[in-house]
């Protein structure tokens, strides 16, 4: 598992775990960040917020927030 902040542009990853307080997790869950959902990383310059596509929307997450979203590569998941 790695954090969403470490995912590279174009990678498709699956959410495995959400860290942080309930305020944060329930807020992002409402926006579609639920366990098992597939996310595509659209932009990540290694600093500043990242932009991801999930479900039908695109969402920008601050670096601190991205660090709380733990993911695995979709390809690894399928290999298991």
């Amino acid at each position, binding site marked *: 598992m790695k954090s969403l902040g470490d995912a590279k542009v174009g990678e498709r990853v699956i959410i495995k775990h959400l860290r942080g307080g309930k305020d944060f997790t*329930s807020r992002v869950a409402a926006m579609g960040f*639920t366990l098992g959902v597939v996310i595509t990383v659209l932009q990540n310059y290694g600093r*500043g*917020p990242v932009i991801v596509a999930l*479900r*039908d929307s695109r969402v920008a997450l*601050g670096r601190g927030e991205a660090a709380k979203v733990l993911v695995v590569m979709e390809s690894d998941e399928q290999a298991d």
Partner: protein
Amino acid sequence: MSRQTKHTITIALAGQPNVGKSTVFNMLTGLNQHVGNWPGKTVEQKVGEFIHDEKKIRLVDLPGTYSLTANSLEERIARDFIITERPDVIIVITNATDLECNFYLLTELLVLPVPLVVGINMMDVAEANGIRIETHVLAAALGVLVEPLIASKNQGVHELLEAAIQVAENPTPFDPKRPKIGVEHQRVINEIQTILNGQVPQLYPVDWVAIKLLEGDSQVTEMIQKNDPEGWDKIHALLLEHEDAYLDIASSRYEWIGRMIRAAIERPKVGAITITDRLDKVATHPFWGSLLLIGIFALVFFLTYRIAMPIVDWLGLDIIAPLSGWMKQLLSATPAWFSGLLVDGIINGAGTVFTFVPILVVFFIVMGLLEDIGYMARSAYVTDRLMHWMGLHGRSFLPLFLGFGCNVPAVMGSRIVENRRARLLTIMLTPLIPCTGRLAVITFLAPALFGKAAVLVITSLVAFNLLILMITGITIHRLVYKDEHVAFIMEMPLYHRPNLRTISLFVWHNTLSFLRKAGSIIVIMSAFVWLFSWLPNGNIQTSLLASLGRGLEPLGRWMGLGDWRLIVALLTSFVAKENTIATLGILFGPTSSAIGLATQVASVIAFPAALAFLVVQMTFIPCMATVAVIKQETGRWKYAFHNLGLLLVISFISGTIVYQIARLL
């Protein structure tokens, strides 16, 4: 707030952010809307009243929220309204390009005891992005009326309203599919419901309360703790075993949504590159994005100076001044205090209010346009790192930047910052952005005071203000807000064409609310300041204001400002920042020219005091128009006074430090 008559149909308009909800609201209500605040809250409330088919309709725009859990004030307001006010019907607006996420709010609304209809907006944008939606398939799956919309072109809005009225008038057959929670948690919910039996406050549906308890909703939890302490102990034990249930509930809602929309939606092939992808390559790029942002702002200021400023000057010189002169003549028979108060106090105050309008209009057009096309989210993305540092949000950047033109639209523009604390902090820091009024004073005085070094001094003063702004921001963030992290989670809407009507109504309502609310405060304050400069005997040199200035001389000496005339000049900048110059003109006696005045002022203050005077001028209390909009936007005088106090302290400390250091040089 309750239903007035039997014939009024109350419709609540719900939807997530970025679905075009306000466009729908504007199309339905036009100018028949009232913009205020939710009772006792600082959240904007828009209510429209109109007649449709001889039926009186009251349309209440709920705050745009992603869900109905008590995470934010907006979410509480939205659900409290639905549960306690019981509108006749809810219109749920969704965005065709983002149906899956938008339906999350729908899953929460479907379990509330109010019937609803669904509008799928931006069908044209969806089509342009290769998304096709069969609304009748959706309607059949959900068991509710679903209307396709292109609200920006006024397509489908009328049909949606008819559908809502039809449902409101025949509520009994309303029996939609309701989202199912996973089996395991459904069992827990049933148990909670059994324990709750009869112990839920009136109006609250017991199954809804049970779900919210399982979701760990703070407001509902508190309500049950208070209402049913015995039952709560049992429920609490049950909840402890299912602490992570809320994530499963969110997942099960999304699974349900997936099943509902699967047959109705056709998405583009994966990997298709959209216009938004292409534009974002530039707009959200760390370098090009910043460059674009700077370019846009340069354009805004160019427009302000080329279009708004000439109109402001024209209003002042060709309308207000002759009007004042004419009024003075007309009132020449009346006592001097009367014509003075009316003309120099009230008419001049009203004049000030109107001269703001051209600047406000230009700024609001730009803000409305940037928001409407979807660029606002990108500007926030680009500036977020810088803003976060001060406890602000990326969205704070735009209003703050507008402050360079005028602090008034900057304070009003802070509405786009959703996080309450970040928004309040944005408002508090805005007066430290030097507006054109403050800059006019220093550019007028600096050449006479500092000669060749004037440009260097002016630049340093602006830099100094920004430094103070950062220090203040970081300090408030650390000390008052205890470093509370402002989460940056923001949807990036697809770009789309701007809608003239949406933008015009945005400009119209913002300008009107300034004139209505801030306007009257400004006129009253202007009258008071005039009275202070006139009483007791009609001469400013011996007026109450002058006495106040003299009384403050000991304090002024700390900053090298031992001359009461300088203090009074600062005090009158409360009316309008540029007033400092006019007051100096009056107090330093008649001079033949403006240059003469600056030299005359320069002759009475030496370098350290001159520098301190300009520093104080740049950080002194905001003008009364800014104070009035701070009250208007925060809904409390408290914050306006906090801000006055804050800037008073900042200007005193800065002035003193600068003077004491400059003296040593």
